[in-house]
């Protein structure tokens, strides 16, 4: 096949990259594992696993507390990871990086803290029709508490953001715009810099949900101009239980704490307490130190591989997969925006996605089936669910071919 010759990554290069991910060598139901559920979570390279093991074998103690050797080491690991992450997103300072549990907690933090202080009746919160539930529900809660109204930017039939509708919906009442950079259900890449420019011109701040984008695209929060950006460690080839909230220092400084407890205070008396400086004000209690160690290693790993290589490989593979999956009779893609990355959502005639998922699983292929925590997206396209194959840096044409062969099994079975 001629397309094969033009593959950006040589097969040998991807094979050696795959060797860095121990889990990719396992078998699934006696078959080669084709892991195509990366939008749910990515697999972890050895460097991340080693960083966690090293932490527990040579560095473990609580942070910011003891004066002893191990506590100093643990604090260095934790704050070192923060500096690495700040650099990865090009934040102005490590103070602007708050460690959270995941992307969801980052959005909840902003919706509760910033929302509580800045939203009142008559204000509007603007989100998009392609959001993950985690960028919908926290805003609904904030609106319920404050009396603000939630507005939704529609998407077109390809799954692209309707920028004209956005321009109409953006008014002096809009206090915050919260959109994803890359949709997990559709693969759409949103023009974040353009959204930010328009929102700022209207006097609104912008939160970007980068849970999906941050492991596919280089993210420079200052170049994008965002006010808040959230990401989640387990999709960044890092561990679960650790996420990142970037916030502009001036905004974070003015915001009230989200949770109270140890580490987030400067002083405590029974009459009143005062808050610690950034970023600690937003990190109550003992943090996920091992998670930060793993996340620090993960973003270093991503930088070592490099986004030039990652995006080129993933783009080429998505084009290959889109063509190959579309050729399976009965397949219809859901999400065909011109600017897309790494996600292939589809339906197959009247075969239910769960049946597709179970059949391809037995062929060693891991995909996600269901509503992908984006029920409004499913409603928009009038379907209960989709099957979704999602790519990461270590996927190959062999993975895609294995999926396509399994989809032919599905078709034969339910014909």
């Amino acid at each position, binding site marked *: 096949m001629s397309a094969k010759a033009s593959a950006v990554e040589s097969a040998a290069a991807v094979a050696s990259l795959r060797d860095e991910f121990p889990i990719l060598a396992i078998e699934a*139901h006696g078959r080669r594992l084709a892991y195509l559920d990366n939008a749910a979570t990515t697999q972890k390279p050895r460097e991340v696993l080693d960083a966690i093991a090293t932490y527990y074998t040579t560095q473990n103690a609580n942070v910011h507390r003891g004066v002893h050797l191990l506590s100093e080491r643990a604090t260095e690991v934790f704050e070192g990871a923060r500096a690495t992450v700040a650099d990865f997103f090009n934040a102005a300072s490590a103070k602007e990086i708050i460690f959270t549990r995941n992307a969801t907690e980052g959005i909840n933090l902003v919706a509760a803290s910033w929302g509580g202080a800045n939203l009142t009746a008559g204000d509007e919160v603007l989100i998009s029709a392609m959001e993950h539930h985690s960028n919908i529900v926290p805003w609904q809660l904030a609106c319920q508490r404050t009396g603000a109204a939630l507005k939704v930017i529609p998407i077109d039939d390809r799954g692209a953001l309707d920028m004209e509708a956005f321009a109409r919906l953006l008014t002096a009442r809009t206090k915050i715009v919260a959109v994803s950079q890359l949709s997990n259900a559709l693969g759409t890449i949103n023009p974040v810099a353009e959204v930010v420019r328009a929102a700022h011109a209207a006097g609104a701040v912008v939160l970007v949900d980068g849970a999906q984008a941050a492991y596919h695209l280089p993210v420079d929060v200052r170049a994008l101009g965002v006010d808040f950006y959230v990401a989640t460690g387990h999709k960044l080839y890092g561990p679960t239980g650790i996420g990142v909230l970037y916030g502009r220092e001036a905004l974070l400084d003015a915001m009230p704490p989200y949770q109270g407890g140890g580490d987030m205070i400067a002083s405590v008396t029974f009459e009143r307490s005062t808050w610690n400086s950034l970023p600690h004000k937003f990190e109550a209690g003992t943090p996920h130190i091992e998670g930060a160690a793993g996340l620090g290693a993960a973003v270093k790993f991503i930088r070592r591989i490099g986004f030039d290589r990652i995006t080129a490989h993933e783009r080429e593979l998505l084009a290959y997969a889109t063509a190959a999956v579309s050729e399976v009779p009965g397949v219809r893609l859901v999400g065909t925006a011109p600017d897309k990355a790494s996600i292939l959502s589809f339906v197959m005639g009247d*075969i*239910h*996605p*769960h*049946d597709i998922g*179970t*059949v391809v699983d*037995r*062929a060693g292929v891991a995909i996600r*089936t*269901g*509503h992908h925590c984006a*029920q409004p997206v*499913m409603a928009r396209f009038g379907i*209960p*669910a989709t099957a979704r194959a999602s790519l990461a840096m270590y996927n190959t044409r062999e993975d895609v071919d294995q999926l396509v062969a399994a989809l032919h*099994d599905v078709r034969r*079975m*339910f014909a």
Partner: protein
Amino acid sequence: MNDGLQDLYREVILDHNRRPRNFRVIEGGRRHEGFNPLCGDRVTVYLKVEDGVVRDAAFEGQGCAIAKASASLMTEALKGLTVDEARKRFAEFQAMVTSPLESPVPDLGKLSVLAGVREFPTRVKCASLAWHTAKAALDGDDAPVSTE
């Protein structure tokens, strides 16, 4: 094809998925809705109960092959049973689909084909949704059924 898959998608199941039986509304009988929030599947079960006997059973809804076939087979199995027998059948069915893989498959007639879901823990809820919904209809519950 994988053996487990053949156990799950038996010919009877594929057939009931393609041509679900009693896929219709029964006016004026008992009606109950069931919902699987995890996957969005929903089913409405209709029962016509007279003199303590299930005279007619039907369903509507959307779901995977297992959910649809299970609902279809259930409507056939319930027809003609007394309410007590229907409850007993529900319990037997539940016991079958949640029993360990090694245990023998009980003889529940055509319903026994659904024992294949035991090998697929994530699909047990698909098979039981219609049954839980029918049970609620038998018991005269008001609240919609959720598998969660």
